[in-house]
């Protein structure tokens, strides 16, 4: 039997129409999954949205008006002014920026070096060292808080950038993450670089690290966000006004005696959130790439 071209085309058209109809057919499973996802997203996003909406309210609006009420004349600038009058916002913001950035940069540097050695060098006791580092991840921070405080006090680093930065300058999580990333680097690449005359430093910084930018950025985001939000250690290690970080500043805005000015607190929180949103917006492409690629052979 011969099939003509027009018959073939007709069959193709019918098939396409059929598949289009199939696509339009409701998929109960898909609808359920999407409904759940939308619900979960709403739960996560709504407090943030409420925080932003609240920056426009007055204190009495919080208790007298509906939850999502937006006043006809938003009081955002007044609230910002209140924040700046109440606390040394710029100082706290800069402190947080200096501390978080320094910790992130130092952790990227040290974790890369440790991760590289643990992934690519053979030396006696390597696995024991790695196992010990992983084991420290299981210890809650609260357990080491006091010993760490005593160490920092004895070193004379209380109420200083050194006290805020150095104890957090290297993390077992960072070492673990970078080691896992470096494991996938082919040994031949390092050997080719060695034959080409590259030193071990150059191999790490000029060959290996540029291949793992997504992992570095992921670690940077996680560390920066973690340190920006950090409250307990800065609370313990700082005394004076000058060394306070943003989280501490926000905590100071809570007034137990006369009641907290919630719109002012939410305004400060929104302002404090700003750098995190900026960092994430710029780097999320790499972050998602790294997290998505972590279980895949490239």
């Amino acid at each position, binding site marked *: 039997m011969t099939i003509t071209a027009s018959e073939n085309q007709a069959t193709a058209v019918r098939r396409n129409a059929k598949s289009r109809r199939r696509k339009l057919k409701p998929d109960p499973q898909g609808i359920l999954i999407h409904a759940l996802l939308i619900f979960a997203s709403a739960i996560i996003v709504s407090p943030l949205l409420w925080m932003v909406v609240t920056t426009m309210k007055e204190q009495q609006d919080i208790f007298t008006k509906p939850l999502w009420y937006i006043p006809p004349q938003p009081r955002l600038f007044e609230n910002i002014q209140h924040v700046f009058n109440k606390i040394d916002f710029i100082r706290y913001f800069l402190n947080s920026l200096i501390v978080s950035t320094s910790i992130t940069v130092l952790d990227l540097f040290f974790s890369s070096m440790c991760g590289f050695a643990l992934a690519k060098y053979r030396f006696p006791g390597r696995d024991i060292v790695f196992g010990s580092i992983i084991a420290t991840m299981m210890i809650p921070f609260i357990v080491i808080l006091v010993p760490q405080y005593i160490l920092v006090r004895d070193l004379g680093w209380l109420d200083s950038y050194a006290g805020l930065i150095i104890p957090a300058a290297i993390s077992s999580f960072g070492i673990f993450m970078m080691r896992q990333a470096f494991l996938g680097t*082919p040994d*031949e*690449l390092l*050997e*080719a*670089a*060695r*034959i*080409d*005359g*590259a030193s071990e430093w*150059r191999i790490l910084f000029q*060959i290996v690290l*540029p*291949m793992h930018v997504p992992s570095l950025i992921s670690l940077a985001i996680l560390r920066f966000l973690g340190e920006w939000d950090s409250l307990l250690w800065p609370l313990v290690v700082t005394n004076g006004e000058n060394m306070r970080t943003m989280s501490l500043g926000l905590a100071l805005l809570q007034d137990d005696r006369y009641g907290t000015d919630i719109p002012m607190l939410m305004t400060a929180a929104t302002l404090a959130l700003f750098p995190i949103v900026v960092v994430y917006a710029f780097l999320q492409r790499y972050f998602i790439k790294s997290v998505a690629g972590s279980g895949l052979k490239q």
Partner: protein
Amino acid sequence: MARVEISQLEKSYDDVDVVRGIDIDIPDGEFVVLVGPSGCGKSTLLRMIAGLEGITDGEIRIDDTVVNDIAAKDRDIAMVFQNYALYPHMTVAENMSFALKLKGEPKPRIDDAVKRASAILGLDALLQRLPKQLSGGQRQRVAMGRAIVRDPKVFLFDEPLSNLDAKLRVQMRSEIKELHQRLKTTTIYVTHDQIEAMTMADRIVVMQGGVVEQMGAPLELYDKPANVFVATFIGSPSMNLYPGTVETSEDGLVVRTEEGATMPLPPDRKDLVGSRIVYGIRPEDIVVGSGPGAIARISTVEPTGAETLLLCKVGKVSTVVVSRERVTLGPGSDIALTFPTERLHLFDQATGRRL
């Protein structure tokens, strides 16, 4: 260019000897292929020459300098890896110029070297591309270009064609050979593919179990394999081997195989009567259907176009025959096979050595 001398080289990992007592002298400009099955120690040997692997005992000299304790970067060698090992974030030009930049060469000289190498390998149009934008063959060429720009004393190739498809492999094989003929740089090439070894080498080193089984020109190894291992490893399809005992019969001197078949021997090998030997003949040396010979039953016919492989049974003995003629017979047919006595290879059954 340089002479490479390897003497009494040993390599052990804990109690496991990977390479034992290797002695190879590679004259200036020679193309030597190290060939052997997986795990025979050929790549370890190459890596020791490169300086990527420590030496347990023995000596490696490059141009009369003992390099045992000299770092890889100071040995003036260049290596091409199986997976190309190109720096993924650098362009072709940056990959090729990396070593010269590290050496602190002036930019005009680096540019000249890259230009020269890219012209030799036809990479001019690809210099600004990243490795991921290249095909397998192009990547392999860049890896060679990276080696060429350094103008090293010795080129080392570690199974460089294994990741390529069959057609590209044949093409790259001849390109590497042409490159060697052009540059005349001493080259040590590792492969497990005996065809690659046969077609490219000035001299082949056959290795097994960490030792050198035989060393020589390709046809020397093919015509006069030193032992059973080399006889079976070199040549495709493999040599037919029949273990048996030498006897005198009414047909003259013969080998009676363990399955009861008799194979003719040249009359001048009376010294072997009573010996247990391995009788070997290459599939292409067996003559099909001319004159009196053993009757074989065809079990499989494999036409490749240029030749036909016949898998047959002589009695109970399996035999592979290569016929240059078109074979019209099918499985189950009988054919007469003649074993020319001048093309035989005889080995001692106990030691495997050539007799």
